[in-house]
């Protein structure tokens, strides 16, 4: 319990802007001594697998579960994976734990819902799974009872998962590709198995399996858009290798990209802890994924010559309101046109969230703010969910979308309201 508190009291002390103009260092900081002992290895793997992300609620104790996942089939709650003998995994044998991770089968033999990404974890080596288990068993025990899942009929019947698994699940350990380098294979293992990146970034089929024909092409999950991370120009194709590596360990590229939402959580809980060698390996692997076209246009394809809205139109009023709010609430940290002093996060058009015409992540960031610990420090943006009303957020997002995203943005209070309900 020594570290979570430290995180909290650090929050907000750091000024968001003072990282302005950061140059990218040659390599991200290396977490100290992660291979010194079995427990450290377990921690490293647990972080790389980001178990905490799904098994810890916002106000909850680490690994105590209860995070709600809204799926088309109902609501699932993540389980308590602390060593509590009743509520957690304290009474589980080693084999039972391995079976859950590799086969998606619970302690009592029931099929597990695939929100738990055993479709990825099945590729983990047995010794890595055991190292993760040993680490979890050494964490503070929390006797927290998780709510029962609330699945719609017939999905409440777990035996149906047998069919789902038949269609969508290939049980089996990671097999190295002999034609690729050791580094590439390490990257594949980190990306596919431990990091389970596809769970968010790969679109799903009708049966909610991952659509491997569109691997990493981007998808919407839990109200957020996970972007295209293939080396296509609408994905990460225009990023330099250095930028990709910096992004993975920090969650941003100065003046260009800043992660928010679930990706910021992944950086905070997982990626920032990875060694430079592992970050390098992940990047090496990602660079070889078959390119896919995503829905966010490449910056070079965006034209910024929109017609001005007609005077006296509702849109003109929205734009005026958005500009006014932008001037007071946003500009001190964001000078996207370079027309003012500094600003930590300029050059809006580079941000996928600004160019994406669904406005999804932009609205989410306005509502929920942004909080991220990268290997280079803490980043923060306030949540405006209660500091601005729906009309005001719609105005800001419309203004940003039209002016810096280059598309015909015209969001309404209703759009914002709907987006609020996602969370």
């Amino acid at each position: 319990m020594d570290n979570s508190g430290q995180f909290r009291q650090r929050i907000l002390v750091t000024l968001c802007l003072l990282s302005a103009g950061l140059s990218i260092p040659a390599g991200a900081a290396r977490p100290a001594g992660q291979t010194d002992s079995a427990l450290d290895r377990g921690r490293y793997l647990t972080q790389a697998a980001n178990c905490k992300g799904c098994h810890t609620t916002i106000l909850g104790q680490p690994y105590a579960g209860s995070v709600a996942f809204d799926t088309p089939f109902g609501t699932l709650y993540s389980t308590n994976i602390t060593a509590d003998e009743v509520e957690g995994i304290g009474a589980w044998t080693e084999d039972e734990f391995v079976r859950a991770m590799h086969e998606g089968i619970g302690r009592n033999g029931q099929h597990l819902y695939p929100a738990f990404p055993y479709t990825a974890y099945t590729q983990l080596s047995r010794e890595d799974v055991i190292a993760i288990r040993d680490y979890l068993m050494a964490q503070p025990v929390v006797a927290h009872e998780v709510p029962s899942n609330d699945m719609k009929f017939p999905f409440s019947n777990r035996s149906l998962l047998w069919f789902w698994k038949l269609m969508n699940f290939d049980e089996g350990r990671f097999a190295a590709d002999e034609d690729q380098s050791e580094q590439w294979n390490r990257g594949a293992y980190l990306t596919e198995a431990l990091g389970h990146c596809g769970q968010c970034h790969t679109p799903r089929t009708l049966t909610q399996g991952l659509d491997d024909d569109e691997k990493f092409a981007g998808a919407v999950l839990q109200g957020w858009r996970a972007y295209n991370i293939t080396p296509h120009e609408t994905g990460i194709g225009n990023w330099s290798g250095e930028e990709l590596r910096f992004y993975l360990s920090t969650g941003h590229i100065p003046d260009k990209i800043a992660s928010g939402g679930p990706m910021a959580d992944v950086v905070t809980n997982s990626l920032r802890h990875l060694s430079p060698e592992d970050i390098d390996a992940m990047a090496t692997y990602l660079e070889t994924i078959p390119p896919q076209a995503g829905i966010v246009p490449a910056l070079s394809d965006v034209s910024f010559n929109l017609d001005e809205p007609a005077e006296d139109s509702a849109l003109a009023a929205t734009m005026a309101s958005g500009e006014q709010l932008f001037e007071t609430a946003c500009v001190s940290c964001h000078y996207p046109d370079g027309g003012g002093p500094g600003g930590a996060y300029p050059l809006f058009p580079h941000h996928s969230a600004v160019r994406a015409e669904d406005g999804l992540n932009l609205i989410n960031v306005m509502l929920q703010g942004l909080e991220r610990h990268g290997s280079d420090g803490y980043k923060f943006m306030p949540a405006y969910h209660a500091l601005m009303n729906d009309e005001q957020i719609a105005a800001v997002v419309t203004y940003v979308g039209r002016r810096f995203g280059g598309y015909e943005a015209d969001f309404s209070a209703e759009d914002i309201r709907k987006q609020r309900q996602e969370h």
Partner: protein
Amino acid sequence: MRPESGTGLVNSALPEALSRRHFLKGTGAMAIGFSLLPALMPRLVAADTESANGVRPAKASSSDVDAWLLITGRGELVIYSGKVELGTGVETALRQIVAEELLMPMAATRFIQGDTQLTPDQGYTAGSNTINQGSVPMRRAAATARRLLFERAAEQLQVQVDQLTGSDGNIHVAGDEAQAVSYASLIGNGLLEASIDQELAFLDADRYRLVGQSIPRVDIPSKVFGRFTYVHDLTVAGMLHARVIRPPDTGATRVTAELKSVDRSSIPAGVKIVQRGNFLAVVAEKEWQAISAADALKVEWHSQPRLPRMEQLYTEMRAMQSEEKTIASSGDANTALGEADETIEAVYQWPYQMHDSIGPSCSVANVTADSAEVWSSTQGVYPLRSCLADLLSMPEDAVRVIYVEGSGCYGHNGADDVSADAALISQIVGKPVRVQWSRADEHGWNPKGPAMVMVLKGGLSSEGDITSWTFDNWTPPHLTRPIARMGAKNLLAGNLASDLVPDGPAIGGDRNAGVTYRYPNYQVTTHWIPVERSPLRPSALRALGGIQNSFANESFVDELAHAAGADPVAMRLNYLQDERAIAVIKAATEKAGWQARKSPQRHLEHTDEMLSGRGMAYAQYKNGSAYVAIVAEVGVSVDTGIHVGKITVAHDCGLIINPDGLRNQIEGNVLQGISRTLKEEVIFDQIGVTSLEWGAYPILTFADIPEVDIVLLDRPELPPLGAGEPTIVAVPAAIANAVFDATGLRLRTVPFTRQRLKAAFSAA
């Protein structure tokens, strides 16, 4: 000419500018107190003379400080006030009251406030007690001085006292203005002192020229020109800047985290680390250096999750070991409940809330081996002095606490704690130190207005009469301020440095628990939860428990009116006999154009419907102070939440000193009341508070403001009552009742967020 603000005089050379000799130089004076020591006046004057030669004046001990007024031979009126200006306008109002009583112009007044070396001990500036109680000794002193001056004038002009009249610091024979003498000439170079005469009558209301007028606030000009000196703006020669690094159990009553290690190599050279127990700070010459170092310092704490999960809070509070106390009772409420034709029960819940001070707390301290000076925006310089003396292991007389206005505090915010931080660090480093809390410090660590649970049961007869009323609430004490001779336990620095646990008397949770309705049977009980069991450190926030209890009581009256099929206004009037209570309710409802109704008007059927409704609430603050009635008009839709469109207030606080100042306070109460009802809730996890900035603890913005219509009921013949808090207690229930009127949804847990509204709709 507008008189200068007292604190407006303050600058970097603050202590000297404020001393009494400043006013005495080269002239005589008349001082009025309760029991002036014969030695005091000559000593003050001697000090004045000596200071010209660079000799520091002898310090007055607290027992010496009881002068309330000084009228100088130059015709200045100096008011020594133990009550302080918190941004509410009391400085202007007190000057009006005293100048009025002394027949002097406002421009002649000077105001010295909150200084343990200069002003009397008037406890805390709190509880809406400044105008009704705090002004009384000042007014008596003024009446005493007026009497003495008139007697002198009569002697000099060779007439009887009752032939004299006065204005603007002059006394003349009635009907002959040529026969006149000024206060200044009556005092001349002589030294006069007198004890307050408790028997003297005050000026008749029909002679008021200042009281009852909207005199502009004396402090506003320097504030809008950016020249006003807040405590944040003070500098002392050689001052260093410090920041405190705090443990993870943010805002918890019991801070149990232990400091494991500090990596001293993690901060740049030139920054000093100060540590005592779990109290850890960095000190630097430049403020930004201190901020950066506090951020960079690598610290490891050991902490345990000890707080309840938020969703369990109210359940746990009701299960906590608590001390039961009957607040009021009549008849046999429980038997009557059992015999009632219809009984209803409702549970109301109120979260922890914080002080919305826009400026995080700040203080400057200069502690040497044998003396300490602390500049603080505390609400009580004397109690703070006592606790600081304990923290610093110094005698009380060696510590001087000087009030300097801070950002609006609304109660016990971080002002006292930051003063302790500054004092302790200054003592350790041996130099003057300024500590400015961060936003996260203030949000996280300022004491919180307590969470409370209120359970009400009511019985109705078949005719719809209320036959029984029971009220039970669960509350921690609302006061863990620094208390004289209680040591350092109520200072955060004391908690951290010496492992002390805050404590405080059972105060505040029963405020407005009882009602002034005359029910035949009632039983009002408070279950006091000990301070140390309150998950978050509880203390005074505007109106203390008055807002929570009135929310419950005034919502429940409406619930009974609904059950009885009665108009909520008529229901209330049935049980009130106090004319002033009836008058405010009638004034508010008439002004708002209230139409008698049986709420709800309709039931909400779709989440996108926008419905409007009206609700009212009434309260007599503390069941013995000012009277307030409110009509709220709201627009409600499950999809877009609650918007308060208009609030109509009728307010009776007896004699009105300054109508515009009063209106300003009422408006502030209304807007803060809406903010607390619709938006504010401190979020915490099992370790500590996580609402550490405005995004996580939102308050009302300009987008949310309603129209506010105010009726002031002036009663010039009655004593003035405080107005800093009464209105806010009636705001939450008025909104809740309006939401019910509009939709049929009864909201019983604050804040009324969209999620709560949606949950109520889903449950209906």
